[in-house]
């Protein structure tokens, strides 16, 4: 009897009523899945090219876009897309080699300031701001799922197109330049790639923490394997687990998705790190 009680509680917790019947949870799961996969792909290059700061900044620039959209009363995703693409273009146009961090920082601050103003003007404090910053699962509508899927497809397509020359440029720049790889074009498209992926991550995990999904799973996967394809597959799996579990926990508790996603990603990293240490420690003792 006691056993049954525990199982019941567990089932209630793992499959809370309404989890699979509520449309918005379906929406959240579909979006979350797409987001986790695409973030892994783009995160691979973010880590490879050392562009973490840019990947950290673009979602916040997108946050200003959503806030602006509430003022103009246009769809939030449109504002997000516009600001992220604009931000990407500004960043790649202004940044020269070595100066990228400064430009990124200034653009970030400007965008945050603008976002603050837009939130006030749009009288959208409270709920909206909270959702923007920390992610929301209740608000994802049917059309929004379609939009996320579309952006996901475009991003994946762009990623696949860029893959080889961008990898060549990243790991063997001199050879790539000698072979006529177009550096400027590729760098610009890479920033656009980050901008696009942020358009997808912000609505789900929020502007503040969407960066974690780009960097975390890939970094963890790199601890285990350094074969390109294996890294991508493992990182994808880690990202999916984090997002799925975070959505469930957020539904259970009512706490923000971003918090859970980030915590799980950090836990994954920690566990893999400790596990690897333990294994290498044991094998070196032999």
């Amino acid at each position, binding site marked *: 009897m006691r056993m049954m009680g525990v199982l019941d509680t567990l089932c209630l917790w793992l499959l809370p009523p309404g989890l699979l019947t509520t449309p918005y949870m379906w929406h959240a799961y579909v979006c979350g899945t797409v987001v986790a996969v695409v973030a892994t792909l783009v995160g*691979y290059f973010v880590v490879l090219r050392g562009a973490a700061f840019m990947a950290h900044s673009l979602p916040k620039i997108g946050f200003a876009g959503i806030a602006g959209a509430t003022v103009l009363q246009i769809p939030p995703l449109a504002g997000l897309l516009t600001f992220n693409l604009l931000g990407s273009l500004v960043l790649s146009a202004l940044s020269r080699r070595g100066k990228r961090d400064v430009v990124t920082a200034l653009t970030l601050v400007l965008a945050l300031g603008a976002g603050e103003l837009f939130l006030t003007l749009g009288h959208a404090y409270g709920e909206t701001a909270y959702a923007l910053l920390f992610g929301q699962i209740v608000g994802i509508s049917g059309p929004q799922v379609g939009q996320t899927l579309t952006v996901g497809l475009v991003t994946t397509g762009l990623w696949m197109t860029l*893959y080889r020359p961008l990898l060549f440029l990243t790991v063997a720049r001199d*050879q790539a330049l000698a072979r006529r790889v177009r550096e400027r074009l590729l760098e610009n498209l890479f920033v656009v790639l980050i901008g696009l992926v942020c358009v997808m991550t912000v609505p789900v995990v929020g502007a503040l923490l969407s960066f974690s999904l780009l960097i975390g799973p890939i970094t963890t996967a*790199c601890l285990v394997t350094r074969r390109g394809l294996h890294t991508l597959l493992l990182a994808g799996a880690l990202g999916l687990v984090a997002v799925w579990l975070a959505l469930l926990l957020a539904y259970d508790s009512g706490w923000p998705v971003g918090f859970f996603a980030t915590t799980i990603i950090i836990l994954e990293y920690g566990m893999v790190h400790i596990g690897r240490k333990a294994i290498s420690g044991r094998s070196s003792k032999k």
Partner: protein
Amino acid sequence: MGEAKPVLDVRDVHVHLQRRLVLSGVRFQIQAGEFVGLIGPNGAGKTTLLKTILGLLTPAQGQILMDNRPIRRGNPAIGYVPQKVHLDPDIPLRGRDFVALGLDGVRWGVPLPRRSRRERVQQALASVRALAYADAPVGRLSGGELQRLQIAQALVGEPRLLLVDEPLSNLDIRNTHEVVRLLRYLARERGVAILLVAHDLNPLLSALDKVVYLARGRSMAGRADEVMTSESLSRLYGYPVEVMRVQGRIVVVGSPDVHVVPPDATAYTSLQDWEVTTP
């Protein structure tokens, strides 16, 4: 002359860099299968010349022909091994994938796993004897190992000309010897024309077919014993320098870069000496 057509024909090339004339009348030829050393003091314009051959710089005067046609940037018949690469130790990439980029890294899209592609990469790895660490992460390899992978990356496209920029500057004697032997082998057996940049001639002396000595923007080309004489180098420098042979090593005294043998390379001996002392 009437002999075989040169793979590379550098004709009286003048190059300006930021309004400064860096190369003023460089001329030499490389035949298929020739192993040529491009030697000269620091700042003589060796890297500038390589960039011009790669088509990254345009000569103000003169021209460079490859197989009798003017060179162009991105020519797949030229393989390039740059000076030094810095790779993050944690980079998620295998040696094999690094080499494959030399085959089709310029193309858009994701590579399809084709058998012919795999085999060509495998061959390139085998020809530089790098199969043992082909599946190791590239960031964790030693300087000598990475050098070999870079050569494999340049070779995998089956170039007719290989440009190798200062491959020996970061290597110890043992690796220096091995890289030189590998390059000589590639020239002899594969018929690849090789132009190797070095500031010190001595480790290469016995392996090279030809020397192109670069000083003050001008060049002198020929066999080592023709070029490395007090008379011809004095003419090139425009003032008297003396070429001395000390214990099988060549030292140029009086050039702006007196230490042709760099201070940290006192252990360098000529290749011949080294072969004798190897157990």
